[in-house]
């Protein structure tokens, strides 16, 4: 097969994408999976939940986060690297202008924040976002 420069770039991009998807599992990945499955009743499809969080949080004791997913009836927030992954669940109603909630959370170390949204029809989607933590919250 003739390998053009363009093919090579496409291949490299593909490999990079695969690498990103298969990030190493955290120690509490099992607990995260259990919490997600309990909430969603299965593994949700990925993407579709907006997570607004600082890229670098200086103080893990109070990290502002915001989650949103259009049409969601509830959103579960998890911190994958905390001793206990659970953070909060927001429940919306037909009087919610947007399925969006914001709060401040504790992060023990640099980790991924996971958000799972449950839609009115029962389908679920999940997104992740990494937050780097300079000084961890919890413990002390």
């Amino acid at each position, binding site marked *: 097969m003739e390998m053009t420069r363009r093919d090579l770039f496409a291949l490299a991009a593909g490999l990079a994408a695969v690498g990103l998807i298969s990030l190493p599992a955290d120690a509490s990945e099992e607990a995260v999976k259990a919490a997600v499955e309990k909430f969603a009743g299965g593994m949700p499809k990925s993407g579709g939940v907006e997570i607004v969080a600082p890229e670098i949080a200086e103080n893990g004791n109070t990290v502002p986060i915001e989650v949103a997913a259009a049409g969601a009836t509830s959103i579960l927030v998890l911190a994958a690297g905390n001793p206990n992954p659970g953070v*909060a669940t927001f429940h919306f109603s037909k009087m919610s202008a*947007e399925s969006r909630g914001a709060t401040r959370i504790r992060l023990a170390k640099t980790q991924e924040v996971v958000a799972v949204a449950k839609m009115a029809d029962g389908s679920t989607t999940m997104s992740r976002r990494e937050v780097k933590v300079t000084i961890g919250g919890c413990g002390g």
Partner: protein
Amino acid sequence: MSNIKPRVKVPSTAKPGEAIVIKTLISHPMESGQRKGKDGKPIPRKIINKFVATYNGEEVFSADLLPAIAANPYIEFSLKLNESGTLKFVWTDDDGSTFDLENKIKVA
């Protein structure tokens, strides 16, 4: 504790169907149960575990909170209202005590 005090920021008026942002805060230590005291014993967990907002008696937003919520839990959400009424907030502590606040909103 006597210093637990809820505060909210709610617009007093809104247009029908307009998105309004509700900001709430309650001063509370949110003791996670993970920390150890000076004697080396864990400090028992004591957090606000539930927040509910109702409008004219109907639940419009709620949140289940766990120890990973920062001290002085801050919660922000949005609503769109079609009629005037009373927005009531209730925070529930692990020990069963509740703290509440009411705000009237005029929709016109």
